[in-house]
């Protein structure tokens, strides 16, 4: 079964708009946290075959820091906030003043800061989506993984895809202006039942 054959343009646009609202809120949360301007790019919606995931990513083997927040409630799914290695280190230094040398050997304080940034951003996205749709959504306990970018995306999509052979990824890029270039990749992986509910609530099923 494939999403590609089932989604209309209208539905894809709605997913994009959801990305916009969610990422906007997440960017505001991050901006408050680090007291810097945070910009967002126009969201992209990818509907990709599981087997082609590594093709949509620039460098699937890049080391990155990812916070995964499972979403519970009416429309379950997974939320991912990914920073590349340099951006993750910059963020840590914004908040605790010290820049770690090695992402794979963070101390407890550093990894906790990183996890919390991801958690706050994912949770604001979820809250915005919940307000917009009036569905009950609740973020679950976050996890931090430092590993290859491609593997994290693949792993999350496998968990979300269930019986589907492709996966929907709402991709948002955030950039911190004013200073060093920090960028992150924020994305929501809705589970298949969730999307059907979402579309029917918004009257576009």
């Amino acid at each position: 079964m494939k999403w590609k054959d089932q989604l209309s343009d209208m539905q894809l646009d709605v997913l994009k708009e959801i990305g916009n609202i969610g990422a906007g809120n997440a960017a505001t949360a991050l901006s408050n946290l680090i007291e810097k301007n945070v910009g967002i790019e126009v969201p992209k919606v990818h509907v990709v075959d599981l087997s082609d995931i590594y093709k949509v990513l620039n460098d699937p083997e890049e080391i990155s820091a990812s916070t995964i927040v499972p979403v519970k409630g009416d429309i379950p799914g997974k939320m991912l906030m990914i920073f590349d290695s340099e951006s993750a280190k910059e963020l840590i230094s914004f908040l605790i003043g010290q820049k770690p040398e090695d992402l794979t050997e963070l101390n407890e304080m550093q990894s906790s800061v990183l996890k919390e940034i991801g958690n706050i951003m994912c949770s604001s996205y979820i809250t915005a989506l919940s307000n917009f749709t009036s569905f009950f959504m609740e973020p679950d306990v976050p996890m931090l993984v430092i590993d290859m970018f491609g593997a994290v995306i693949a792993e999350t999509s496998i968990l979300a895809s269930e019986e589907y052979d492709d996966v929907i990824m709402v991709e948002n890029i955030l950039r911190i202006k004013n200073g060093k270039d920090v960028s992150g990749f924020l994305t929501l992986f809705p589970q298949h039942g969730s999307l059907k509910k979402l579309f029917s609530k918004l009257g576009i099923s």
Partner: protein
Amino acid sequence: MKNKIIIGIGEYAVANNPTVLVTIGLGSCVGVCVRDKHNRIGGMIHVMLPESKDNSKKMSKYADPGIKLMIDEMIKKGADVQNFEAKIAGGASMFQAKGFDIGERNVKKVKEVLRALHISIVAEDTGKNRARSIEFHIDTGDLFVKKVGGKEKVELIKL
């Protein structure tokens, strides 16, 4: 120059010498590499889930029957079951939380399927919590495993 084939999630490929089969970002998935060491015909499958009872889906996603499909194709190409040997890598649990034991289940099922087909596993690098990228050289049978190690370096292991 060796021909390189990149295998996506839930796919497999069978090739003659000299070819390098590659798969990127194995998390809980398992890369199963099988080679006929005399005829130099090799195959690699990126197993996503243990098994499927429903025949309508993409079968190469599953250890059972995906591995069998790959073996059949190798035999069609002229490989001899007598010469088969397997190397496997993957099955990590990247997210350390309850209910994420797909990696372990995948590895167990892969071993079961290979045993049933009388193919011996000569090398493996499975489990733990790091993602892997693998390269399988059909001419030598070497399997190179890349992992993110300490000091942000990429660890390269030869199996």
